[in-house]
């Protein structure tokens, strides 16, 4: 095989990985602040994907253009979920939180199944078959747009947490729960905001991913797992780690698909996860806590 094929596949994997990274960023923000493991993460992404499909088929509006309203819908959804159901579970044991989110995920998957049926759906954009020629390389235009959008949204999120008052208050909550209570922050509301932001991230990621893959209601659990692999690889609770993990997993999957067989690609992602858990449990970018 000529070397360009490897490079083409690697670049394609990295671009997809950026979208994965944004999806995982949502999970990481939620875990980092609320310390809740969102077992319904992939399911929330499929909701975002289906909204994009509905809008596209009704109004022919491009998912990337509609990314902002889709993220907004998911934000409201996430906020409401945290405020109503998850907040009362913050001090419950892990397995109890896990069950709550599994139940929520089960409902999400099957409501989607009732509404949209089991068949795969996708969007056909006008640029679906376009590509850029960079020297000897051929890069898929869709993936370039999606990857670019993921970088943009991530940058906005970083800026939000660094420069806005609410972002800083949320970070304070994450660092010191009791301290945040003491200085009078409304922790429950900040948690709801955080879950909303995490949901918005994954909703935006869904709007991008719907350009790249077909969606079925059953897609949710697989992407929940993928998001876990990414944040643990990158470092649970670390925002740059999530992006880096996403790129790494996207790259690994793409190369595994090329060198072995596409159906075995998740095995490599899991192998990476096991290695990280054993030898660097805090993740690539995570800080070690004892």
């Amino acid at each position, binding site marked *: 095989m000529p070397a360009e094929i490897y490079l083409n596949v690697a670049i394609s994997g990295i671009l997809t990985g950026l979208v994965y990274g944004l999806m995982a960023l949502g999970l990481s923000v939620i875990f980092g602040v609320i310390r809740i*493991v969102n077992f319904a993460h992939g399911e929330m992404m499929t909701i975002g994907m289906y909204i994009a499909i509905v809008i596209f088929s009704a109004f022919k509006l491009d998912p990337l253009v509609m990314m902002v309203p889709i993220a907004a819908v998911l934000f409201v959804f996430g906020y409401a979920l945290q405020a109503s*159901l998850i907040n*009362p579970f913050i001090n*419950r044991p*892990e*397995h*109890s939180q*896990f*069950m*709550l989110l*599994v*139940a*929520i995920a*089960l*409902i999400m*998957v*099957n*409501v*989607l*199944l*009732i509404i949209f*049926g*089991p068949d795969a759906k996708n969007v056909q954009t006008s640029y679906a078959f376009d590509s850029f020629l960079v020297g000897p390389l051929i890069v898929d235009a869709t993936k370039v747009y999606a990857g670019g959008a993921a970088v943009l949204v991530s940058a906005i999120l970083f800026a939000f947490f660094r420069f806005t008052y609410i972002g800083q208050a949320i970070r304070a909550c994450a660092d010191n729960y009791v301290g945040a209570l003491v200085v009078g922050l409304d922790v429950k509301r900040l948690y709801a905001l955080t879950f909303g932001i995490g949901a918005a991230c994954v909703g935006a990621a869904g709007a991008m991913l719907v350009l790249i893959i077909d969606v079925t*209601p059953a897609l949710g*659990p697989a992407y929940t*797992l993928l998001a*876990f*692999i990414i944040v*643990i690889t990158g470092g649970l609770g670390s925002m740059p780690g999530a992006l880096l993990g996403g790129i790494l997993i996207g790259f690994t999957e793409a190369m595994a698909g090329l060198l072995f*067989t596409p*159906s*075995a690609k*998740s*095995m490599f992602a*899991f*192998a990476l*996860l*096991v290695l990280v*858990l*054993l*030898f660097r*449990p805090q993740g690539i970018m995570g800080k070690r806590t004892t």
Partner: protein
Amino acid sequence: MIGQLFEGVPARALVLGGLLLGVLVAAPFLVNDYLLTVLIIILYYAYTGQAWNIMMGFAGQLSLGHALYVGLGAYTTAALYVHFGVSPWIGILAAIPIAIIGGAIIGFLAFRFRVGGVYFAILTIAFAEFARVGFDHFSWVGGSSGFFLPVANYSVSDLWNLRGKPMMFYYLILTMTVGAFVICRLLLTGRIGYFWLAIREDEEAARAIGIDTFRYKMFAVILSAGMTSLAGVFFAFFYNNLFPEQVFHISRSIELILAPIIGGIGTLFGPVLGAFLLTGLSESMHAILYKFGVDIPGVKQVFYGLCLLFVVIVLPHGVWPWVARVLGIRERRS
């Protein structure tokens, strides 16, 4: 041993337990084939729930990858039977050690490298997924297109090869469930049960009173894996077909743990009650929807999810502790 089994059990619990067992033993003569199949499914989940509960409910190690042990047990005995005509009763001599080795590898890696809590749970998922993809490409047992046991219409049941009518499978799984219950009761009320509970409650404090936590956690994983692999053997010979996509899937692992969680983690009767509630709920929903002519895929699962949500919110310790209180039975609780 017998003394320990019944020690401290209120008379009322003995009577109720005896009654339940009596009804279960007589059930094949009282119900039709459909209900017998439902009972088989209930007991299957009661058994696997009990096995999982050893790890989570007793020793405090959350495994979300128990489908791995089901699959290893199922594929090992099915392959030996189909390819070499080996009876499943001999086959388990290979299936149990294989599942135990799988559990021991996960346990050893996790406990030596101090992978705990959510991370441990995800490690167990990773290994189950590993197996799923691996078996997808394992053509000796059919790969992703499935592995099938020969099926015929049986006039007599062949217990040695586990070929036969539902009644044979019913008594088999009933025996397994009662056996698992007895084993768990003996272990939980014995020395090792105390050590497990101590580890579950506070591992560092457990170490400080001299408990070799590594050793007892390993024992929990090994026992749980071995017991779960037997459920896999049952699964293979009852359903006669195995697909990696179904057997090892994460949703199978989650199904296995719903019964003890709904019933009450760490309790002996929780997995049994949980299995009755969940399967009963699922089947009756099916019947009701069928009656009203609703045939949309997903409706049943949405109700199922809502019921789960309700139980998790309203009865955080599971249904059994509450039922036990109502019945006036006290079980040493988690």
